[in-house]
């Protein structure tokens, strides 16, 4: 009996809550929700109805009180649409700070624009959005919309706290599944929520109240890793009319293989013959694969064209072969086809490119925004970024390294990880010979080698115009004054994946004059540090995504007539965050040379919020110790 009552009560609550929540006066917001907040989500209710395998309706209501101009971005009064998803209705009502309605904006007054970016050749995505000038803060905007789509493969998750500096008064989520299509859902980080829920086989219901805003902090984890969410996916679904069934990654991968990838790797005979010729003398599969990758890089280019099953289907390999371009899906599939022609198996692999984001291993649904290629060779797994015309073979760089990805095989999907670039491999190694002059100026020969992640961040400089290269170095080495360049040369070793910079430069005022002394900063190139704000009440954990290693060797030759009066003491700091070893020594026959050896290691890792202060202190120590000077005095 109690159960029935409870159900009735819940039903009543759900049915009537909109009527009770019409008080949008700004002063009625709980003061606890105002701290750190630029806006307050007063009421968000999303109702997703699965009307059929290939028909879904999403009703959204989003009421946001904007507290200041930074809060405007949270209004989000818009919906996307394209050929396969249509906006049925859209409306917005604006309330003043007293909660009185001041304006109503009808659907036809919404603005419309194409979402084709400047880098995209074609996409049919469009946006219908509210363009409203806010006059006074606080103001409340209530947006309501209804969107219908034929793709049920993407079910919007419930993420009540989707942004920094936004607090939530009330957020609810309802999945209505009258046909009882089997579905899965997964709850994350709901422990600390005041939560109401009612889940059955024919639907879900969640409601949360009073969630405080989160302030973004430097070097902190991604918001979605610690904020509440409920993920939902149907086990039987449709993507732009193509139906499917999948309850886990294996099945979803299988479906993607069967409906999006299969039978797209046919190639013209002449291309195969050409490849056969190219790989004729190759001794191993790895060597062959390198030749194939090189062939793709030389003969194609990246062009973003979002066509085919909602942008999820790659172009045919033979079309890429003829056109010589494609997007990441097309180029990956094309490379796969070419490898196949050489009897080298490879796998189309879906990934989130950019910041380290995993394809969720625990929850199978359409995820990812990029595609790369995985080759399980005998000695190791090789990874290819096929959308790049310049990446070396088996180099992913920081766009897709160290994260969970979905590898698609004919048998099904599999979650695996891309390689991590370890701290010791992310190496920048410099060797600099410096000749000083009496006025404090210098000429220097700089050799710097970059490998690991630093390789990917620097090698593009070789294609820049000379003027821009000079500006790059002047900006990065701002402490070296009036830099002039007599030589700028680069060596890009794509086999060993090392990029070497070779420079000959001249500059003024490296050493500052003080009477008959020269004050010489012995760290010719500055040590890498993060600039961290003082924050005694850090709330979020500290995350260093990638470790880095810097080895520097500076050799100074004194101007004629000068001798060394003093040199900095050696420094060794080592802790959980990394280490700094700095050693200056006097060298040369007449003791007219200074040698400086520096090792700086910044570890990757996750630490509790309390570690922030110590980490900042470590950065300050590095700055301070690498700012020490030697004193030269004229005879």
């Amino acid at each position, binding site marked *: 009996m109690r159960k029935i009552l409870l159900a009735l009560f819940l039903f009543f609550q759900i049915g009537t809550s909109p009527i009770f929540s019409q008080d949008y006066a700004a002063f009625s917001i709980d003061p606890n929700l105002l701290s750190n907040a630029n806006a307050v989500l007063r009421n968000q209710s999303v109702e997703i109805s699965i009307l059929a395998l290939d028909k879904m309706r999403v009703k959204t209501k989003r009421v946001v009180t904007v507290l200041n*101009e930074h809060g405007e971005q949270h209004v989000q009064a818009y919906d996307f649409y394209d050929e396969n998803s249509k906006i049925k209705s859209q409306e917005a009502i604006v309330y003043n700070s007293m909660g009185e309605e001041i304006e109503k904006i009808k659907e036809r007054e919404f603005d419309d624009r194409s979402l084709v970016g400047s880098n995209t050749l074609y996409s049919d995505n469009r946006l219908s959005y509210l363009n409203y000038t806010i006059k*006074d803060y606080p103001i409340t905007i209530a947006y309501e919309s209804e969107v219908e789509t034929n793709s049920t493969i993407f079910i919007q998750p419930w993420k009540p706290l989707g942004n920094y500096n936004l607090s939530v008064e009330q957020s609810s989520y309802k999945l209505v599944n009258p046909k009882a299509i089997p579905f899965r859902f997964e709850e994350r980080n709901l422990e600390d929520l005041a939560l109401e829920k009612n889940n059955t086989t024919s639907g879900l219901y969640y409601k949360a109240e009073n969630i405080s805003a989160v302030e973004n902090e430097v070097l902190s984890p991604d918001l979605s890793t610690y904020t509440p969410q409920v993920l939902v996916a149907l086990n039987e679904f449709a993507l732009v009319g193509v139906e499917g069934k999948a309850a886990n990654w294996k099945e979803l991968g299988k479906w993607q293989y069967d409906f999006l990838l299969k039978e797209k790797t046919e190639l013209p005979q002449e291309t195969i013959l050409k490849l056969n010729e190219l790989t004729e003398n190759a001794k191993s599969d790895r060597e062959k694969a390198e030749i194939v990758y090189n062939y793709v890089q030389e003969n194609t280019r990246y062009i973003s064209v979002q066509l085919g099953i909602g942008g999820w289907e790659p172009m045919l390999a033979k079309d890429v072969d003829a056109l010589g371009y494609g997007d990441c899906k097309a180029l990956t599939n094309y490379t796969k086809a070419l490898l196949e022609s050489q009897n080298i198996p490879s796998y189309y692999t879906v990934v989130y490119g950019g910041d380290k984001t995993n394809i969720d291993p625990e929850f199978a649904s359409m995820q990812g925004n990029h595609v790369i290629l995985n080759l399980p060779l005998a000695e190791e797994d090789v990874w290819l970024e096929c959308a790049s015309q310049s990446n070396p073979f088996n180099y992913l760089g920081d766009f897709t390294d160290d994260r969970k990805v979905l590898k698609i095989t004919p048998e099904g999907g599999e979650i695996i990880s891309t390689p991590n670039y370890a701290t010791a491999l992310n190496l920048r190694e410099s060797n600099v010979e410096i000749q000083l002059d009496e006025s404090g100026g210098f000429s220097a020969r700089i050799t710097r080698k970059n490998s690991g992640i630093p390789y990917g961040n620097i090698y593009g400089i070789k294609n820049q115009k000379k003027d821009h290269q000079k500006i790059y170095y002047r900006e990065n080495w701002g402490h070296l004054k009036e830099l002039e360049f007599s030589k700028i040369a680069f060596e890009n070793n794509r086999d060993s994946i090392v990029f070497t910079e070779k420079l000959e430069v001249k500059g003024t005022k490296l050493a500052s004059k003080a*009477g008959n002394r020269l004050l010489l900063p012995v760290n010719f190139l500055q040590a890498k540090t993060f600039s961290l704000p003082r924050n005694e009440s850090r709330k979020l954990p500290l995350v260093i995504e990638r470790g880095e290693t810097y080895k520097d060797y500076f050799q100074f030759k004194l101007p004629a007539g000068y001798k060394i009066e003093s040199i900095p003491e050696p420094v060794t700091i080592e802790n959980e965050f990394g280490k700094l070893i700095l050693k200056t020594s006097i060298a040369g026959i007449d003791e007219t040379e200074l040698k400086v050896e520096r090792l700086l290691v910044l570890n990757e890792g996750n630490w509790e919020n309390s570690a922030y202060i110590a980490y900042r202190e470590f950065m300050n120590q590095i700055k301070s110790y690498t700012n020490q000077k030697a004193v030269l005095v004229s005879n």
Partner: protein
Amino acid sequence: MKHFYFFIISLFSVCLLQAQDYKFGKVSEEEVLEKEHPEFKEANAAILFREHRVYYDIQRNSGLRLITEVHERIKIYNKEGFDWATKTISAYQNGTETEDIGSIKGYTYNMVDGKLVDEKLRKNGIFKEEASKYSLKTKFTMPAVSEGSVIEYTYTIRSPFVTSIDDVPLQFEIPVNRLEAQVKIPEFFGFRMHYNPKSPIVFPIDKKRESFTYNYTQKTRSGQRIVKTDYSQESIDYMLDVYGFKRDNIPPLKKEIYVDYLQNYAAYLRWELQYTKFPDSPIENYSRTWEGVAKSIYNDAGLKQEVNRTNFFDTDLDQLLAETKDRPGKLAKIFTYVKNKTTWNDFIGFQAENGIKTAYKYGKGNTGDINLLLVSMLRYAGFDANPVLVSTKAHGIPIYPTRNGFNYVVAAIEDQGEIILMDATDKNVAIGELPERAMNWQGRIIREDGSSDWVNLMPTVKSQNTTMLNMQFDEEMVLKGKSVRNINGLHAKKFRDNYVGLANEDYVQVLEKNKGNIVISDVAISNEKAIGENIKQSYNFELRDAMEVINEKIYFKPMVFAGLNENPFKGEERSYPIFFDFPSSDSKTINLLIPEGYEVESLPESAIVNLKNGEGVFKFVVSLNGRFLRIESSLDMNNMVYTSLDYEGLKNFYGEMVNKHSEAIVLSKS
């Protein structure tokens, strides 16, 4: 004999050059084999040939059409040049009529196994997109492009908007080997041609007249009961103005990192419609003077009507001004009232989009709505107030008198021969100041009688930024001190734009940034919301690691965090002018108490550096009085615009300042 050979060789190479065939499809092996541009070695791509033809076409069904035909042949040297293989053509539509982009034809040429092979651009490489209500885009990307490819394409734009001819580009970011342009205009249209005054390159144009006969069939019907149709051949003879342009080796537009609107500096031809004179119709004159343009905007675009609209705000304004008798007081009240009452909707324009009455009622509008409302209120209150037409920075400086030359309006009052400008769309500008977008050269003031004049929009008063640091070392050699800063004018506006509304702890973070190992406390800011008033900001600081002790000597940079550490001018040279935001006077005073037990061993020397006849002055004055060290560093920049010729001077000038600011003092134990 040697000479003779040389002669033959050079003659031969001239022949080779001339033998270049620019007919569509006649791409040569040499062109595909070329590895780098012979003259501009760094070029990623080059336009081997470009033909741009503009003419009018008369058709019986559709009437007059303006036709633009473009033929381009582009060489791609390397992967950085691949962007040139994708082309976007923009067309205009206005709801009823549309420009039509068609006849797209293209091929890519490559050398495959020693043979020249072409690949056709097919339909699947061409995409159309409706970018907005007014803009259509056709994009295509060429097939089979790799390093060395030559691509060639043609397309045609048919436009119903016959009185506006688009700019004919003469220069690009890549070199052009051969460019031919031709514009044929029938005598029905009087166009005047203009070069881009910002481009240093002016190419000569051939102009000639041709006669032309247009034949058409006239259909006449006669008779009452038996209808008889006669077809007769008719013809009109008319003259054509033909502008021709042919040129080899056009240098690329140099891309520099610190230039915003690069295309503003490219060479092009612009077409100004002066009149139309159709057969059997009177001449219609479009040619204008600035006086005429101003007058027509004032009368026809509704400005006159708007600024004279009152009564809807009369009571409110009477009440507002009831207590205020003096004119400056009234002016301030009205300006603040309009700023508080209305919010700018981010749209620019000299016309009132919604009308000032609606803007007043709903509290928002475009620049026309808000500033015309201001003019109207000022007039009501007895000021000699008028609108001033402006072209924003992004819009550029107008080349010839046309209504399109202006796109913005501000308000002005005239008082004893002095003009005071106002813009109520920006909450942080004071009376007499303009937001950056409107500070562009000259504007046109239009008075009640329709007469107009140029007024200067550039700020003439120097904005001040004064900082004083009083500091001393404590026992642990931590530098402790207080910073007091006073700012006015556009410096104060900038401050308000950036920091007003920032929470205190966030502002402390902003202040501590890039100042080393510092702790800042007791931040106080006054007048931050009193627009037009000086802002005073002060804080206490504790700076660690500010000095070094080596062999019992203290080495210390006295400018600490207040100095300029890096020269902002990093480029080797410059091809474009340099703009400063506003004339400015920046001064920094350091007062340091030398620690007990130490004496000064050496000090930086004082210096004065002049930039170009006093357009800029840097002064650095060091004085020691007992234990009190005082450094006064000031930078006065009196001019806002410098030409590329001044670049080196500016760079050296700032270089000197950086040097002075990084000099150290040495203290030794006494």
